[in-house]
């Protein structure tokens, strides 16, 4: 029994440490250590360690940027994208070390360099933000218990709206009243027309559900039993639509961060090349 337990422990440890993530992490650390050690040696010999760290940083940045290219070359038989992702994250985090060993200050001087530094920081920050989104949003989406493709959301919302309107019309013709119709036109339509409460959904609030419950509750006592049945149908559809809103909000976020990360990184790359050029012409 004891042996079995140790086996499990060994296996767990192996799972934790002998996987591809650890390999990437370890190799990155070793690589960085070698680069930094070499730069330190060069420094000792009155050389310019900036050249070593600078070019290393350049290659790391190119590697990071190439992730985008690799994602475009979807069918290319070169290393699974998931491995690229892991390397991208690891390198993206650790290149900060290289960055500081190159720049040696929090904020350099000179407009060009300041712009470069700010873009670097922004791309790192947006990258970390994206990492955070990627780690948290899928789980939250799963927990909503529905699954919907982002591009289909407009048409699904339109479907739901059509259904609700059909119910309303049916209710009106059957009961000869316009209470529900009126309520729909005055209030509910606003909700069904497009995704609502997006910010609240993003921060995990229940405003949408609360609103739907409120709006259905508030007209209960104007309705007879038959109409109430229709109201329940509408409420169900509204709650479903609320979940779609939730998906829309979160899926938008999980795409939106790239709207910052990619343009910032590309602009940074432009400045990196400019910096490289200027340094080569003027300094080395």
């Amino acid at each position, binding site marked *: 029994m004891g042996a079995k337990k140790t086996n499990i422990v060994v296996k767990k440890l192996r799972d934790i440490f002998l996987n591809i993530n650890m390999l990437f992490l370890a190799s990155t650390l070793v690589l960085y250590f070698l680069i930094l050690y070499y730069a330190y040696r060069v*420094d*000792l*010999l*009155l050389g310019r360690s900036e050249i070593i760290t600078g070019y290393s940083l350049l290659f790391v940045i190119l590697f990071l940027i190439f992730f985008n290219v690799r994602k475009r070359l979807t069918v290319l038989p070169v290393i699974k994208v998931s491995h690229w992702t892991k390397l991208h994250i690891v390198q993206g985090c650790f290149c900060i070390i290289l960055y500081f060993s190159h720049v040696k200050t929090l904020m*350099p*001087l*000179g*407009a*060009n*360099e300041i712009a470069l530094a700010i873009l670097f920081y922004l791309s790192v920050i947006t990258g970390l933000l994206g990492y955070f989104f990627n780690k948290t949003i899928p789980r939250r989406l799963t927990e909503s218990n529905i699954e919907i493709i*982002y*591009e289909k959301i*407009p*048409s699904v*919302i*339109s*479907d739901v*709206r*059509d259904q609700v309107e059909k119910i309303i019309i049916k209710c009106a013709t059957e009961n000869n009243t316009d209470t529900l119709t009126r309520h729909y036109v005055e209030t509910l339509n606003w909700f069904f*027309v*497009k*995704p609502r409460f997006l910010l609240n959904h993003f921060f995990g609030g229940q405003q949408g559900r609360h609103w739907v419950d409120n709006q259905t509750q508030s007209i209960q006592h104007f309705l007879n039993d038959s109409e109430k049945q229709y109201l329940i149908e509408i409420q169900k559809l509204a709650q479903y639509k609320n979940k779609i809103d939730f998906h829309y909000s979160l899926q938008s976020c999980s*795409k939106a961060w*790239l*709207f910052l990360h*990619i*343009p910032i990184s*590309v*602009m940074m790359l*432009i*400045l990196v090349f*400019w910096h490289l*050029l*200027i340094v*080569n*012409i*003027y*300094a*080395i």
Partner: protein
Amino acid sequence: MWKKECWQGPRNDGRCGGVFECKPQKNGDRYLCTRPQNAGGVCKQGPLPDGNCCLKRPACSPVPSNRVVRKYFTLISSIALISIMTLILALNFNNKTGSIVIEPGELTSIHAAYTEDIGCSSCHKVHDSNLHSWIKSVFTDTDISNQCLDCHGFHEPQMGAHNFEFNKVSTQNALTVECSDCHKEHKGSNFEISEMKPSTCNNCHEKKFNEFEAGHPEFPEKFPSSMPNSINFNHATHLEEYFVDPKWIDKPDRDKEFATIAKDDCTVCHSIDSVKSNRIKPKGFEEICSSCHLQQVRSRNLVFFRPDLFTAVSGLLLNVSEDEEDEKIDDYIEMLNSFTNEPGLELSKLIETLDINNGFSELFLGINPLLLKSTAEKWVDEEDLETELSEELKYFGWLSGYDEDYEQTFRYKAYSHNDPIIKEWLELTLNLSKKNTDGKINESAIERLRETMLDKKTGPGACAKCHLSGLTDEVALSTQLTWKYRINKDRKFTNYSHGPHINLLNPSENCIDCHELDKSSKYHEFFKEDNLKINNFNSNFLSIKKEKCDTCHKRGKIDASCTQCHRYHYEPINKKVFNKDVKKSNS
């Protein structure tokens, strides 16, 4: 946007995919609906008679997908960035606005001021040149250090480590150091460009350390006085005996009052009014020595002639060695004879014959030809000269007749310290003994003169008693620092300043905190030897220990970086700046 999409979807170019549900096909004379199953199948109504679909919907404007928007967003922001940079560059390449897309930071204010007119190309030669050399510059090394030398001058080798030829370590000699290795520019206008971290020194120095207290080696033995000064002044005997012992201070020609204050207060003798260098100079002879030692200066004669004997001086003048004296005694008598006519003319003839008049024009300054003439006349007649001079003039200057030992001599007696004639004769002696190249003058005569002049006991003016090291030391001689207080040039790269230390301490009392008197030192022994060997010198102060410094100079207290005490450049000069400025203002 929040509508249902049609089954066809937009076209490839992003336009609306059409307003009809299907495109009916003609089969014979009938049109058939072609809507596929997954879009609802064949419609009930069927196509219109003209062959158009019966289901028409309003055209839409398709929304680009997220990825397309992102692509354009990226593209536009990149293009914007590039065009802004290009615009700035194109409009203002050479002025301040243009350089912001190039400059990696402001220059230090002083460099900025000096490069104002020429701009970037003051240092970056490539800045003003054409595209070709820009491209070339990408692939070749850029040399900045040479431009530094436009303004800054250094001891040769200018790019060598410490601007100094280190003979001992050949590898270090070969090491060239670029200015930019240590001095970083473009770090802001207030950047201390010459401030160095210990790591900079550690690059080359094999003993590497970052903190003075922990890593700096112990100071050498005999630090800081490994070399004798030009003046033989024994602090130990003065402070312990001459200033204290009644045997000395009670002597009539001694200034007891001075001795009493000087024994406890260093500043009585050492001036601290203007302490800029690492030396605290002693005050002059007149101020601090003469009250006791003036009498010694005045008590010695420089004997030129005797009635029937060669002296050291007359031996030199006639170029006669000591051995030949008896044979040449006739020459001597003849010389005395000649003095009876025109003594001044005769003396200058003698000097010209010896070819020593060059540079030594004051050897017989203020000599009274009549005195010499009358002396010579008496001596030729084998009579003694009896001079009756006033009391004042009796003891100093050019004298003749009986001296203190009742000998007939023609002599000179110094009145005070720094007597020009004695000094002139001493320098002549040193000069001859150093370089009597053509052998014109008899070696033995020079040697005799030298012995006479440098004799501590009887030497004229008693100069050698104190100035001996200065007079015999090769280094001192070569640098013409025979007389003056010698600035120690051995520690070329050490840069200790007494100033701040003295201001912190009580100067009259705390000197001995560092400069502790070594009573058992064999200071005087060094000066006894004939041939002074610097290695045998012992200061009469104990050597200063590192601990003295690191009580204050340590981490968290007072800065103890290398450049606090050491300087890198050996004799830096900025003369070229002035040349340039002068040139500029001329043109």
